[in-house]
């Protein structure tokens, strides 16, 4: 719950920081006041977002111990390390320098001030790296040994170089950049439709468009590698993502699929493309793809949500490439003013990358079920046993109310400042 909420606010900061830093650097180097206005405007929106990212991140660190006590005790030896490193190497850096950036306008040189934002942008992305290395370990545990009734770390390098974690990191971070690109374009579209400060918003739009296109392509590229990685390491998750029941070699890709609600097969299966699934899964046309039937029912993830989330996410990813490609082209040719409909679409496209990233998390986390740590510990074994269900519901209810209220205020503030436009 907190994790999902945390992830509503964090991804925008992953990408927006780079854009703010870029605008401010152009200002610092050229003295062009237009870039100062842009940096301050986008920086304000960045800050409003950052606040909630930080407070939810703070609580996340403690909830693991509160609700997942058995898990924490069992794997703390290895899982705690990346979290502690994250706090020490990244969280400190971003929280300290965001304060410098916020309050330091009059107290330091232009270049040093811009550098503070580069530090923040770098640190937020580093933060994601350590968290995702931790998550990557849950997906593909490496570098440990079962000893003294717990998982003990034996090889930090294996944890550090776990390809699963790195793939997740790039996939997540790039999709965060897509969110930032679409966010910038959407806000600009709103102003361009109203002909406000057209020069400033066109400049911002084209920066957002280039950023979004590059990151959409990168997400898709890493997504492909990620698919191969899942097929190799977590065949049950891969089978659920594609709703494949029978093991086949070579395996065809089924364009139209719908899993049956009984959870024991597909209700619809039509339009098969031969060899395609084998190609996707292993980059080899004849490779064998394991089906769900080869796993005992208690070892299968919930197929329907994983499958639907995955398909929707991929479709959205394709859409982002198309939209941002069109955006780059239109803004290069300076044709944005002639296509108000396109601007409207871009405005309403702001939530789409958010949706895609949440769906991606559903695939990752639900697809790993019934495991908490893949192949090592089941989810039911990880929960706290001194905590009563009433306490958990109370805390869940409390967090939901608090976060929803703060989330609404935050979005309202974002909208307020986004509409206000730049300081001339």
């Amino acid at each position, binding site marked *: 719950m907190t994790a999902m909420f945390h992830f509503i606010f964090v991804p925008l900061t992953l990408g927006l920081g780079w854009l703010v830093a870029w605008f401010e650097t152009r200002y610092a180097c050229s003295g062009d006041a237009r870039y100062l206005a842009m940096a301050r405007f986008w920086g304000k929106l960045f800050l409003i977002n950052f606040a909630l990212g930080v407070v939810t991140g*703070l609580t996340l660190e403690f909830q693991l111990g509160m609700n997942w006590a*058995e898990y924490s*005790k069992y794997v703390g030896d290895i899982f705690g390390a990346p979290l502690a490193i994250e706090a*020490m190497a990244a969280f400190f850096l971003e929280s300290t320098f965001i304060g410098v950036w*916020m309050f330091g306008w009059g107290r330091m040189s232009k270049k040093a001030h811009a550098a503070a934002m580069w530090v923040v942008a770098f640190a937020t992305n580093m933060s994601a790296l350590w968290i995702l290395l931790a998550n990557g370990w849950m997906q593909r545990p490496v570098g440990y040994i079962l000893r003294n009734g717990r998982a003990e770390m034996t090889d930090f390098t294996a944890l550090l170089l776990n390809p699963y974690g790195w793939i997740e990191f790039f996939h997540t971070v790039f999709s965060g950049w897509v969110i930032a690109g679409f966010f910038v374009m959407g806000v600009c579209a709103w102003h361009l439709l109203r002909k406000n400060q057209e020069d400033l918003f066109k400049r911002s739009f084209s920066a957002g468009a280039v950023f979004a296109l590059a990151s959409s392509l990168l997400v898709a590229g890493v997504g492909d590698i990620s698919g191969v990685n899942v097929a190799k390491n977590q065949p049950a998750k891969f089978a659920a993502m594609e709703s494949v029941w029978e093991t086949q070699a070579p395996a065809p890709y089924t364009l139209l699929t719908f899993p049956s609600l009984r959870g024991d097969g597909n209700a619809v299966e039509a339009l098969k493309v031969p060899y395609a699934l084998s190609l996707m899964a292993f980059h080899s046309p004849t490779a064998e793809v394991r089906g769900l039937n080869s796993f005992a029912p208690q070892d299968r993830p919930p197929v329907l949500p994983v499958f639907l989330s995955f398909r929707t996410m991929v479709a959205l990813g394709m859409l982002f490439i198309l939209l941002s490609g069109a955006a780059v082209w239109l803004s290069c040719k300076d044709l944005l003013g002639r296509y108000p409909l396109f601007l409207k679409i871009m405005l309403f496209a702001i939530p789409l990358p958010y949706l895609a990233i949440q769906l991606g998390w559903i695939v990752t986390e639900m697809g790993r079920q019934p495991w908490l740590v893949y192949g090592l510990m089941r989810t039911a074994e990880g929960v706290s046993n001194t905590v009563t269900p009433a*306490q958990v519901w109370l805390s869940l209810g409390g967090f939901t109310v608090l976060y929803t209220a703060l989330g609404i205020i935050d979005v309202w503030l974002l909208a307020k400042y986004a509409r206000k436009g730049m300081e001339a």
Partner: protein
Amino acid sequence: MDYAKLWFVFWAVLWTGYFALDGFDLGVGFSGWLAAADEQERGFVFSSIGPFWDGNEVWLVTAGGATFAAFPPVYSGLFSWLYPALLLILFSLILRGAALEFRGKVQSASWKGAWEFSAAFSSLSATLLFGVLFGNLFRGLEIGPAGYSGTFAGLLNSYALLTGLLFAVFFFFHGQLWLSFKTPDPVAGRARRLAGGAWYALVVLAVVFIAASYASTGLTGNFMVRKSLLVLPAGVAVSLVLAKILLARGAPGRAFIASFTGIVFFILTGFAGLYPDLLPSRVNPAFGLNVYNSASSPYTLKLMAVVVAIFLPVVICYQAWVYRLFRAPLTAEELRQSGIY
């Protein structure tokens, strides 16, 4: 080298860093409004902690993360056994973060008033709860052969409440000293008087706390065995006396540094008394979680010690640089410039 013992020291240092730093912004959070008479003056109060509170709270995150990595059973025990207390602390910290961030974003008296109230309330509840939490650590938890058996009401015993009160008064003093040199008059003048008054309450509470610790906890045992540890509580006394003298001589900045070292010595005193326990048991010392039965594997401890040895000095350096950067008191011009921030 015994890494588990080394990690106990790191653990103590991280918590100490948290309380010594976040202590003043918590104190400003709940008592700053007393030194301010109108909206602009409250603007000074909140802007004075603006660049710092976020980085200070990361000390807490790091203390939590380090507990997780170095003493996993302590991490899972502390947070799942004391669930309701921790939950309230988290709610307070979330509300506080939101209040500090949102306050300046809308220019309306009722909006600001509402967030100022939230900030004060949540800062106070976080401070009291941290005090209660540490009071219970000092006193020992109800850990029996079958695990933890305490209740939330049991956490609110008189010793823990006394510790909570001590934390609150200490942070009040610390926070007012911060305002005494970071804000312009008349805010600073009021803060100096408030700090001066709070000092007496602080001294009385500290004496009562020492007596209560002697009477109802095992905290004082280590000091009897190792007399050299007495330098820590002596450090608290010297720091507090110095803080009062410096404040009276019109050097509130130095008085703040003295109260900072006071908190450092105070928290270290507590940890020195706890050693080797992290979560002591009231039922029977054998059931407590200590450095011997709760540490991570030597491999992890060694690795994390290297990480701390590299990053902690770097963090301290750049945080010190930030404090230097913002050392000059706030001015009305700066407050206007920073606008919504």
